[in-house]
Each structure stands twice: as structure tokens, then as C-alpha cells.
């Protein structure tokens, strides 16, 4: 059994309410934090090695230490609950089932950062989750954990939920800030970084839901103890949202020492592939990160077992590796078509491009069109090179990372499954009736077959 720090109590009946949550030890970290110096809390988070759980994996303690403290200017903590990366649905689970954990983490973090008004920016579609959070906030306020003079400490903190309205781009922190200001979600040019000039030009820290929730166990157990869990720079636990062709889709909290193979095939986690089919490919960290074929997914190019952590998943760079990303784990079985799957992702990014930068606005549309025509058996061989060319011209040439996020899945699909694209071009009729399957693999696949 792995260690659970976030979801260990998520199944306790009534844990959504304050009373049960408190009885189970909730809000202890707030009591502890309010007796500490804010700078010491930042220090604990630094020691914990916690990395942002939204996808970028930036060290949280370091991000906090960047916040500017100009005299007389309010600072704000904003929780990024705009979970929209295809394959990712972990934050929803946490907020839906154990909302007070997020509120608790946010109170501690607000105190550490000196934020007297903090916001939770939640994607508009999670309408009912927004109600759950508002209820939890009201309960926390009623019990003296929010509002004026929290627990007699002299610290004031208000917290509000701000619902978005359907835009993936608002998960990018500067677009989120624009949206919080009541504008279109167009990302800002950095610098200035939000830590200097964020919402309403005030110093702002934007952190993911899971990141802020992880502050609770870090405070309770101490940063050093937290850092002992996991391996290398992958400390603590990570929520993985597993989906696609697996027997047990859902949310799993893992310590980052288990192998990818164990995660997919053991009964404790995904429980293998349904209907006795074989594993073809996987996108382990949300739709933006490179897709890997089964052999490279389970074993690195060096021949080592690949593990479910930041370092191991990115072992080999983009040539033979991928990324931990947001933990959105998408599994494709042998009957899935990589061309079609990539097409749906390209369509997603075209739909979600804010339109500010031409490489992304135009390029995502071109990629979608070309992938659609290849998928429908109307592609030319030169289209594959054209696709490669377009994605290269998007990557790195946009204000925000959505450009890269749109380019990487296409690049990785061509890099690892070029023969499948070529087969579509060469077999326009056959490709409409059947999928390419596992013919991709020249060598025998050393992949466990499910029963």
C-alpha cells in the first residue's frame, strides 16, 4: 500500500462537512501555522521539495519567495482550479470530496504570503463543485477559520470562489489573472511576473489545487519528513487521474516510487487493459505531454524500468521520454488509432487557442485540418512533413505555453508512430475500415498481456 497524504480521509462519511473534517484532524495545520512566522512557513515548503502539481512542476517554495512586498500594496493568493487539460480530473475529485483540505491549505498559504483576500478560480463547468467550495468556505468562516482575526491570531483572510466560463487558456496563470479581472483570457507577456504584478497589478501567487492541498501535510509533518517520501526531486505524493482503456479509471494517490508497469497492470491501480487487449501507447501527464509507445513507456531507452515520477518519465528527453505534467494518464489499447487520437487533441488546441499569437492561432487550425484529412484517408505523404514543420514553427514562438502544448502531441505522434501516419496515406480505403493496431512494432513487444 502506498502512502496517502491527501486522500487518506476522502472516503470518511461526511468528510465534506466541517464537523467531520475537523474531528478527523482537519485545520490543525492552520493552528500550527498561525503560531509561526510567515517566512518560516515558506522555509518549510522549500524544504519539502514540493513542486507545482498543475503541470509545470516548478518548486512551490521558490515561487512563493519571489512575491514582492511593496509597502501598502495588498498581495493575493489565487488558487488555479481551472482544470482543463485533457486527461486531468484530479482537482475536481479533491474539491468535490474533501473541499476543506483545499480551504485549509489556502489559509496556511495565505498567511505565509500575506494575502488577506484569496480567490479560487474554478472552471465554469464545475458548477456544482463551486457550490461545494462556497459551502465549505461559509463553514470555515462560521468556525473562525476565515474572516477577521482568525483563531485570535490577528490575521484576517477572506476567500471567494470565482467561476470561469469555459476556456482552457485560463489555466495559464496570466490568462487566469486577466479572467479574474473580468477580461478575455489572453495571456500576458512576462515579465512582469505575477509575483511582482499580478491581479490588479498587485503581487500575486497562483498555485494549483493539489499544490495548495499538499501544504497541509507539509505543515503537519514538517518539510523534511515530507521530502523523505518519494525519490530524488519527486517528493511527496502525486494525484494521478487515470483514464482511457483501463479497467479501473479514477484518481490514485501515489508515492512516486512505483513503476509505470505496476501502475497500469496491478489491481491496486488501473487493473490492466479491458477485454484482454494489449497496451499500445500512453500519454502519462495530460494531453500536452508526448505520447509514448508501450515499449518506451515501460522501459527507458537505457533499459531501466520507468517509474511514475518527474525524473524517470522525462528520462531520454523528448526523443525517448515524456513528462509527468499534470498527472493526466491516458492509456490507448491496441485497437486505438494514434492519428485519430492526435486529431482530437489538435482540434482541442485549435478550439482553445486565444488567438493572440499568429503561430498558435493559425498553426493549430492548420494542424487540425491536415490531421483530419489524413485520418479520413485523404492525406498526402508530404502532409506528414508539413505537420512536422508547422508544429516546429509554433513551439517557442508564442507568448504562453499553449503553443508548445499544441505542438508537442503532434510532434511525438509523428516521432513515434510515423509508420501509422504513412499507412493511412498509403491505404486510404483500408484505414477507414480498420486500425493499424500493433503492426507499428518491428520487434516482439515485451508487454504484459492482461488476462
Amino acid at each position, binding site marked *: 500500500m502506498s502512502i496517502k497524504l491527501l486522500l487518506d480521509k476522502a472516503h470518511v462519511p461526511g468528510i465534506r462537512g466541517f464537523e467531520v473534517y475537523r474531528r478527523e484532524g482537519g485545520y490543525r495545520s492552520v493552528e500550527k501555522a498561525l503560531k509561526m512566522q510567515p517566512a518560516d512557513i515558506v522555509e518549510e515548503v522549500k524544504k519539502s521539495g514540493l513542486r507545482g502539481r498543475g503541470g509545470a512542476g516548478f518548486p512551490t517554495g521558490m515561487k512563493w519567495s519571489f512575491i514582492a512586498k511593496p509597502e501598502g500594496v495588498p498581495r493575493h493568493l489565487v488558487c488555479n482550479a481551472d482544470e482543463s487539460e485533457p486527461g486531468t480530473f484530479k482537482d475536481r475529485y479533491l474539491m468535490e470530496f474533501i473541499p476543506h483540505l483545499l480551504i485549509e491549505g489556502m489559509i496556511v498559504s495565505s498567511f505565509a504570503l500575506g494575502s488577506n483576500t484569496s480567490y479560487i478560480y474554478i472552471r465554469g463547468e464545475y458548477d456544482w463543485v463551486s457550490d461545494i467550495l462556497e459551502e465549505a468556505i461559509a463553514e470555515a468562516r462560521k468556525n473562525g477559520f476565515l474572516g477577521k482575526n482568525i483563531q485570535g491570531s490577528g490575521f484576517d483572510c477572506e476567500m471567494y470562489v470565482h467561476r470561469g466560463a*469555459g476556456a482552457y487558456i485560463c489555466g495559464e496563470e496570466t490568462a487566469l489573472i486577466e479572467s*479574474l479581472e473580468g477580461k478575455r483570457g489572453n495571456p500576458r507577456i512576462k515579465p512582469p511576473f505575477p509575483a511582482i504584478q499580478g491581479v*490588479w497589478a498587485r503581487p500575486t501567487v497562483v498555485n494549483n489545487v493539489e499544490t495548495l492541498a499538499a501544504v497541509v501535510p507539509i505543515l503537519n509533518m514538517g518539510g523534511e519528513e515530507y521530502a523523505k517520501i518519494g525519490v530524488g526531486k519527486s517528493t511527496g505524493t502525486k494525484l494521478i487521474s487515470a483514464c482511457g482503456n483501463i479497467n479501473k479509471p479514477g484518481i490514485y494517490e501515489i508515492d512516486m516510487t512505483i513503476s509505470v508497469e505496476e501502475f497500469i497492470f496491478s489491481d491496486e491501480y488501473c487493473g490492466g487493459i479491458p477485454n484482454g487487449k494489449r497496451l499500445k501507447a500512453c500519454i502519462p501527464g495530460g494531453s500536452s505531454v508526448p505520447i509514448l509507445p508501450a515499449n518506451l513507456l515501460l522501459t527507458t531507452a537505457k533499459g531501466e524500468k520507468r517509474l511514475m515520477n518527474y525524473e524517470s518519465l522525462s528520462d531520454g528527453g523528448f526523443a525517448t521520454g515524456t513528462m509527468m505534467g499534470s498527472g493526466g494518464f491516458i492509456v490507448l489499447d491496441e485497437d486505438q488509432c494514434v492519428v485519430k487520437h492526435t486529431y482530437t487533441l489538435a482540434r482541442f488546441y485549435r478550439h482553445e487557442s486565444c488567438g493572440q499569437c499568429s503561430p498558435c492561432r493559425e498553426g493549430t487550425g492548420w494542424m487540425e485540418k491536415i490531421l483530419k484529412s489524413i485520418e479520413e484517408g485523404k492525406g498526402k505523404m508530404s502532409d506528414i512533413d508539413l505537420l512536422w514543420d508547422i508544429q516546429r514553427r509554433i513551439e517557442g514562438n508564442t507568448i504562453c505555453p499553449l503553443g508548445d502544448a499544441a505542438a508537442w502531441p503532434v510532434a511525438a505522434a509523428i516521432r513515434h508512430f510515423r509508420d501509422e501516419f504513412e499507412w493511412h496515406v498509403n491505404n486510404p480505403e483500408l484505414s477507414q475500415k480498420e486500425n493499424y493496431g500493433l503492426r507499428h512494432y518491428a520487434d516482439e513487444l515485451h508487454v504484459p498481456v492482461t488476462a
Partner: protein
Amino acid sequence: MDVQFSQEKLNKVNEIISRYPEGKQKSALLPVLHLAQTEFGGWLDVPVMDYVAGLLSIEPIEVYEVASFYSMYNLKPVGKYMFEVCQTGPCMLNGSDDIIDYIKQKLNIKVGETTADGLFTLKTVECLGACGYAPMMQMGKTYREHLTKEKVDAIIDECRTKAN
């Protein structure tokens, strides 16, 4: 149409505005537009957007540009029940194409259309964050997950019963 919130809703608008610093009432735009859409027939007509602009002391264009950016704001009338079926990668892997086809056939409409009786609108949407419970769709405030043809039938019946 007379565009005017009830006193109760106006109080709600003022409560929302109070969440943001003084002079930053524009920040209330997204939540107030959600409220307006629910209140005024499920979509945002120009007079509604102008009314919201007045409430927040901002220019109408500031409302139009936001309303046209975010996918949840409807700029055209929609049916009483809107089926927004996710079609992105993970849902596609689990058969969302079949569900979309089935709804099209069952309601005899294309994607983006509304049934003649004004009851149902079918839309396809991109990832709604329910990948593990695919295929799925959003219907109003809630998600309907693990969809099958039988479940779709039951949901349609449920809507028709409620509407009568």
C-alpha cells in the same frame, strides 16, 4: 423583453461586486454574466449584455468581447435542455462518437441545432474534466457520465417528463 434583475438578484450582484477591491467591479463580469444567462432565458441577448454593462459601469463592448470569448455564454437562443457532449481524446477512446451519432439520430438534429419543440440543443464540446467517467456530457449544472445509448434514452425521457 424587459431586462431587469429582481431585487433579490440585484442584491446578489452587489454581493459579488463586493468580493473584489473597490473600483475593480469589472472583475464581477464573469459571475454576473452567468447569473444573467440563467435569469434571462439561457442566452445573452444584446439588451442583456448592455444591462450588465450598466450594472458594472463598464462599456458594452467590454461585455461583448468577454461574452464572445468564453464557450459557456450562449449568444443565440438554446433549447430548454442543452446536451454538451465531450468529444476530446479520452472520451473519443471510450466511444463518444457513437453517443453523438445516437443523440443526433434520436433527436433528429445536427450538432449545433435545437429541436423544433425548443426542448433540446445538441452541442459538442472539448474536454470537461471527466475523462475517467467517459463518455459524458454536461446538462445544465450537472454532468451525466458513463453514457450508453440506454442512458441517453432515459435522460431524454426524463427531460420530456419534466417539461410536461
